[in-house]
């Protein structure tokens, strides 16, 4: 056993090539162990910030079962670490809005065009430019589809299905190829504040800022041809990856319910090491009401990505022609900030995934029929200018991580740190020198998302593959990026 494994990293001992664990007994308030999926290089990076301390705090939540889990892309967040998974058991385990985060159902949608990069040729720049014209970025407004009152309520309850039925946005296959078919049950618009409605009113079909992006890509490598074929992916194919969430609507839902739960902690005799972990029993009125509001925000987010995809198809139609737009299919859409009631190991659990992706294996009835023999698609965006990966859920995810895998490369450097290293203008120049078209109105925002601010995505996906949580299917490389 290596010296690092024997000595441990901040008390975490290596129990497997890619698994590190801190027993529950390590801290008086921990109810379950804290477990990290990482190789030696990544655990060193993870230990550099407060991620591991935050993971231990998650292990103190009432009703948490198994272990507080961290994916290899874990980094320091607020309350929960980003890249964390916590499953709590009904009826008296808790639900924590901070365990989902402000951007409820932030997620990723992959579209595949029926052409190769060679066939796209010199039109990549025109396509990226057209998408940037049609997709509002930044703080957010300018949605061409403003839903209010009962029309908004219908979206909150039914998700993008209502956009197809009432506005002709998307296709039936898009909805079939969306996690939970784009609709979490139990959504109740009465649980959503007027402030949330006001923040989201003008933001359907907008990208946002921060790490949200829209990327034009090509399939650089197929790593599992049988699964890639099942997903409708082939070498050199052009794809578009959309990364956004529930915008101000979801942010306000989180704000409202963290506040509410902070105020009732004493009533439920809950003591926490960090107030941002504020929570309430799943069976309590506050817990049930949060789940009803969160489902609204999740359905809003799927609606948001459906409108973004619609705008991408419009852009494709204008630049490449209607036939190519019509032939553009949605591979899948996954959430990576959400809490869901799921059945694991014979029990109903509330699985909090914050910066983590559901990764159900072949055979799951939650997976669309066409993918059921392959497994659920998962998308792992890399940092800007580097590869992204298409993965597929594996059986190990059900055994070791409540059906979960990682969600990205994971930050390792602060935003100010990234800005100290490079200016936005210089980064733009370097990306363009690699042949990547960049459309981003903010040099500051661009610099903050510099590739070196993130962990090595190839190492991250290698860990989840080795751990048996997900398998690599295809590697995508960027041709152009639109950022907020």
């Amino acid at each position, binding site marked *: 056993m290596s010296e690092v494994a024997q000595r441990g990293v901040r008390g975490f001992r290596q129990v497997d090539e890619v698994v590190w664990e801190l027993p529950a007994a390590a801290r008086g308030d921990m109810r379950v162990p804290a477990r990290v999926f990482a190789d030696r290089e990544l655990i060193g990076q993870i230990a550099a910030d407060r991620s591991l301390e935050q993971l231990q705090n998650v292990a103190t939540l009432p009703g948490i079962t198994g272990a507080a889990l961290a994916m290899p892309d874990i980094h320091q967040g607020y309350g929960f670490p980003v890249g964390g998974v916590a499953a709590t058991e009904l009826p008296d385990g808790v639900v924590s809005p901070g365990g989902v985060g402000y951007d409820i159902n932030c997620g990723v949608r992959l579209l595949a065009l029926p052409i190769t990069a060679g066939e796209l040729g010199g039109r990549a720049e025109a396509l990226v430019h057209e998408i940037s014209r049609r997709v509002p970025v930044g703080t*957010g407004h300018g949605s061409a589809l403003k839903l209010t009152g009962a029309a908004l309520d219908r979206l909150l309850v039914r998700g993008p299905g209502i956009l197809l039925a009432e506005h002709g946005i998307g296709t039936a296959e898009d909805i079939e190829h969306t996690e939970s078919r784009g609709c979490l049950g139990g959504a109740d618009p009465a649980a959503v504040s007027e402030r949330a409605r006001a923040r989201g009113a003008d933001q359907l079909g907008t990208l946002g800022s921060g790490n949200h992006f829209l990327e034009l890509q090509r399939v650089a490598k197929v790593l599992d041809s049988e699964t890639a074929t099942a997903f409708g992916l082939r070498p050199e194919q052009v794809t578009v990856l959309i990364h956004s969430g529930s915008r101000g609507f979801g942010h306000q839902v989180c704000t409202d319910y963290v506040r509410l739960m902070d105020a009732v902690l004493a009533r439920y005799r809950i003591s926490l090491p960090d107030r941002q972990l504020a929570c309430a029993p799943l069976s309590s009125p506050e817990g049930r009401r949060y789940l009803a509001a969160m489902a609204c925000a999740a359905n809003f987010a799927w609606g948001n990505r459906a409108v973004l995809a619609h705008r991408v198809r419009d852009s494709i139609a204008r630049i490449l022609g209607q036939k190519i737009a019509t032939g553009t299919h949605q591979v899948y859409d996954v959430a990576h900030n959400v809490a869901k009631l799921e059945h694991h190991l014979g029990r109903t659990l509330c699985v909090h995934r914050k910066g983590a992706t559901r990764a159900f294996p072949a055979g799951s009835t939650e997976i669309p029929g066409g993918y059921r023999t392959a497994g659920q698609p998962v998308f792992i965006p890399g940092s800007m200018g580097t590869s992204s990966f298409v993965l597929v859920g594996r059986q190990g995810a059900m055994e070791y991580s409540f059906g979960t895998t990682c969600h990205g490369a994971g930050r390792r450097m602060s935003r100010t740190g990234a800005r100290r290293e490079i200016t936005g203008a210089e980064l733009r120049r370097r990306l363009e020198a690699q042949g990547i078209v960049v459309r981003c109105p903010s040099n500051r925002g661009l610099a903050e998302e510099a590739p070196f601010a993130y962990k090595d995505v190839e190492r991250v996906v290698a860990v989840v593959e080795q751990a048996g949580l997900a398998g690599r299917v295809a590697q995508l490389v960027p041709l152009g990026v639109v950022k907020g």
Partner: protein
Amino acid sequence: MSYRWLEHTAEVELEIEASSEEGVFVAALRALAQLVGDDRRAERVSRELKVDARERAVLLLEWLDELVYLVETEGLVAEDVERIELSDGGLVAIVRCHRGDPRHLVKGATYHHLAFERSGAGFRATVVLDV
């Protein structure tokens, strides 16, 4: 009064020092204006804001969320404070804003590392913002 941004892997952590409690709220407003980073200086307006919370740290959170709400729903970036009155249960303030097109979004102010405390002859506060 002064503020600075502390290192945080993914989000931003604000630290404020001020000689008075009011100064903490004014500094938080100026820090947020800098963070959302708007260079368009269109119509100028004043707004009265009223925020309630018994605990000062939570009041700071509510104040920041109120300013975020103004940015996001009306494109109004509050730049300075004309008047601010603190009471045991909250604050009332008149803030000067410009209507702009801010590029950087704040999702919410969090309870993580939230502090508002006496420090020497003045006050010190910290708050982490999800960006």
